[in-house]
């Protein structure tokens, strides 16, 4: 099986999943008692105006007719227009996704850089002092709500100490966004050599990224430890030890065999985080996809919710494909299998 075959198969498998998720979302939105027509019309709207809005949104038609129309447009790449802002949903997503990804990916990178070594170190001596402390820290990361720790951090680092800038988005008001290359303000401003912009962007990014990386690192520590312990207890590591190999060499063998499951785990975790980051975006007024999606759910903007859920699903599919390819690269035993 060639790489192209593999990718094609994966993409074909995605279609029914996306359809299922789209249908489920479509149905949940419509059986609920959230009334977008009344929300759009406002308290002053009369019967006729409400009926007009309902007709315009297509909500007066039969459920399956509505769904058919939506899927038909979807097939041509048309996500429709937001009911609240009348902007095209696809444009909104394109404009906001980079902000979320910038925050998410930097936090995952930082979380993995801290979490993986800590997990490996914990497994070296299970139930030792380091392991106990790491376990507690990891449990704390599991238990602390993102939004609360964000509020606490804003109080301490912005209000009390004045180290952090006000939590009002990705740049301060005096700075213009850099030329759009990757969508990340930090990377773009470095690429174009706008150092003051880069400094501002990094300053705005620091607090949310550090906070989110705590949440990201907690499960990474736990699973890296478990995976590493399993590898260390395996027959081949015991064999390597009994051969009298140096501890450093044994550790290298163990590490080499832990990488793939750890990577796969980080991938699985990543898929849920695009939704989880939305609360942090809300608090830091980040203007990202999550904040927009959250708002869409609360205001009954069905078209936007639909697009948001679709992006989340697509994102997790993309992550899995990337992880599969990475595993292929790192793991000599892995072959292309459907």
């Amino acid at each position, binding site marked *: 099986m060639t790489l192209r075959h593999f990718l094609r198969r994966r993409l074909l498998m995605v279609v029914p*999943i996306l359809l*299922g*998720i789209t249908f*489920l*979302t479509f149905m*949940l*939105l419509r*059986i*609920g*008692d*959230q009334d977008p027509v009344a929300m759009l019309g406002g308290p002053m709207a009369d019967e006729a105006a409400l009926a007009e809005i309902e007709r315009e949104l297509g909500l007066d038609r039969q459920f399956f007719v509505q769904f058919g129309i939506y899927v038909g447009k979807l097939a041509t790449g048309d996500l429709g227009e937001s009911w609240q802002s009348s902007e095209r949903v696809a444009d909104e997503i394109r404009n906001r996704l980079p902000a979320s990804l910038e925050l998410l990916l930097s936090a995952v990178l930082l979380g993995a850089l801290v979490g993986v070594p800590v997990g490996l170190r914990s*497994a070296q001596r*299970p*139930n030792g002092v380091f392991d106990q402390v790491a*376990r507690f820290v990891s*449990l*704390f990361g*599991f*238990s*602390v*709500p993102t*939004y*609360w*720790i964000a*509020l*606490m951090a*804003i*109080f301490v680092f*912005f*209000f009390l100490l004045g180290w952090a800038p*006000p*939590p009002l988005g990705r740049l301060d008001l005096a700075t213009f966004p850099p030329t759009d290359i990757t969508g990340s303000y930090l990377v773009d401003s470095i690429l174009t050599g706008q150092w003051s912009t880069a400094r501002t962007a990094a300053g705005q990014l620091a607090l949310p990224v550090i906070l989110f990386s705590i949440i990201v690192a907690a499960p990474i520590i736990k699973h890296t*430890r*478990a995976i590493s*312990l*399993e590898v260390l*207890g395996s027959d081949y590591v015991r064999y390597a030890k009994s051969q009298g190999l140096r501890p450093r060499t044994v550790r290298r063998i163990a590490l080499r065999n832990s990488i793939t499951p750890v990577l796969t785990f980080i991938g699985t975790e990543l*898929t*849920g985080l*695009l*939704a*989880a980051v*939305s*609360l942090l975006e*809300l*608090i830091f007024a980040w203007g990202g996809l999550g904040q927009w*999606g*959250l708002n869409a*759910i*609360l205001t*009954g903007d069905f078209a936007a*919710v639909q697009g*948001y*859920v679709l992006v*989340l*699903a697509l994102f*997790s599919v993309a992550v899995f494909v990337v992880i599969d390819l990475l595993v292929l690269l790192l793991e000599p035993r892995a072959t292309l299998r459907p």
Partner: protein
Amino acid sequence: MTDVTVTTPAPVPGFTWTGRILGITRRSPTFAIGFLIVAIFAFIAAFANVISPFGPIETFSDKVLIPPGSEFWFGSDGNGMDVFSRVMHGARFAFGIAVPSAIIMLVIGVPLGLIAGYKGGMIDEVVLRSMDVLRSFPSIVLALAVVAATGQSLINVVLVIGFLDAPIFTRLVRSEVLALRSSGFVDSAVAAGNPTWRILFVHLLPNAIRGSTAMIAVRMAWAVRISATLAFIGVGIQAPTPEWGAMIRQGAEFIISGEWWVATFPGVALVGIVLGFNLLGDGLQDLLDPRRKATGK
């Protein structure tokens, strides 16, 4: 076997409750700490109206946003309510959500897992696939959508959380049943002519549920967390109900201006109880599966 005499077993020499408690504490300090934390919160929840100095929505309109001090231990909020009393009453909502949603998770998840594991074939396949679709949704989005769509009451929040977590128990129980299905006691039960439901619920259930006990505590932690998150976003339970997430939401606007106590204390309570449940679950796993401690699985 007609003359069966039942004698109460003589107490094991040297058995004392203190000894037992100390033994468990030594074997898993994690469990002991978690249990203690949860027990304290349970006590607070049970006697909130006796031990809290004020009512949860008792308003002192002339004493708005007073910092923590001798009158209001945790300060007063923007409505002039006592944060300390409200945090204590919040414990009731935490348990009021965690316990019923755990029951729903089990009532839906466990029978499905039993049947899917025991019957196998098509039923297994259908149950597993539908659970997969449910799990592939980011749970916070699904919870938000459902609660936003089906109305904002405590019962809805509990139902949604229970439904979302049921698949976890289905999977756990199913894998246990798969391992037990071909064991001797099941074969004998079939040979003795037991109906399927009896085999499932009398013979298999007690053996298959063991692996799920630790998970119950962990999912209760999640239930408390996610319900608070929903309230913080503004769906689900609304202020001035003394629910911790709703209280943090109230306090969020005061953080920038320096009135930190309104959001801080409900958050500390929230972290405390969630940490307690998580420690409890982690420790239970140590106690129930001693191998895990060594292998870390």
